[in-house]
């Protein structure tokens, strides 16, 4: 992400996230429930801040509401979802013009197909995309996931410092430094 785009995304994300965090302060939740609520707030804020330039935000927002997404709720991107590297010759049955493929090439193609399928599952809305769009979406999604992690980490550090002033120490994962050490940041 370029500089100004990254900054405005992070600010938009932070704003939405902190607003929805208020509802996570409810004391009746178990830690796991609250964690799920925080996670859900973070994903919703990320999708909202991203807006309309990609498909994954819609898919993410749709999956965080309880109804499962149906393919009719998205605009059709292509008449068919083509596989990555489709090179089928129409007269395959007659084997008259299909080039001989080495078995290593076939193995490579099979591996690519298999891993493309896995990637589809990792990117929200990926099942509806063709190979080229999937790669673009994956790039966009990765970039915004990184920004999400960065902002969450800063929020967590900020809250950590504030918590240190008034509450007993909260042991963070992987951290053993003293909270009273003012040089953290």
């Amino acid at each position, binding site marked *: 992400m370029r500089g100004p785009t990254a900054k405005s995304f992070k600010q938009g994300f932070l704003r939405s996230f902190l607003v929805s965090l208020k509802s996570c302060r409810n004391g009746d939740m178990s830690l796991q429930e609250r964690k799920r609520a925080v996670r859900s707030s973070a994903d919703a804020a990320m999708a909202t801040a991203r807006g309309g330039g990609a498909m994954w935000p819609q898919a993410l927002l749709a999956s965080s509401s309880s109804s499962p997404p149906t393919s009719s709720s998205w605009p059709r991107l292509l008449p068919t979802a083509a596989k990555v590297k489709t*090179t089928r010759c129409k007269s395959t049955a007659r084997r008259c013009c299909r080039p001989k493929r080495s078995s290593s090439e076939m193995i490579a193609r099979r591996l690519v197909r298999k*891993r493309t399928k896995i990637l589809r599952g990792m990117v929200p809305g990926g099942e509806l995309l063709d190979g080229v769009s999937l790669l673009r979406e994956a790039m966009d999604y990765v970039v915004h996931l990184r920004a999400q992690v960065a902002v969450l980490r800063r*929020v967590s550090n900020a809250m950590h410092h504030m918590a240190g002033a008034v509450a007993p120490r909260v042991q963070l994962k992987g951290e053993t430094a003293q909270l009273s050490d003012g040089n953290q940041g």
Partner: protein
Amino acid sequence: MSSSSRRSRSRRAGTSVSSSSSRSISEDQISDLLSKLEALLPDSQARNGAHRGPASRVLQETCSYIRSLHREVDDLSETLAALLASDAVTAEQAAVIRSLLM
């Protein structure tokens, strides 16, 4: 089966049956996208301008990377959940955080 009927069959198909010219265009596109994707990955040699790894490797590492990013978000959510539970952060402090970070 004559070649002319094969051609007309191609034209009648609603979606594109890959002719050799369109196949190379979309393979170039895919190759370009894979290189760009690889450049995003941690420890990617593509950042140094080296020849990019095979498509299957880039796809696999992208999946791992997304998985690890999801895990980080999950861990951070748990951390935040614990901090919120301790009542250590009030609404006023949340507003202060927002103004400091933005």
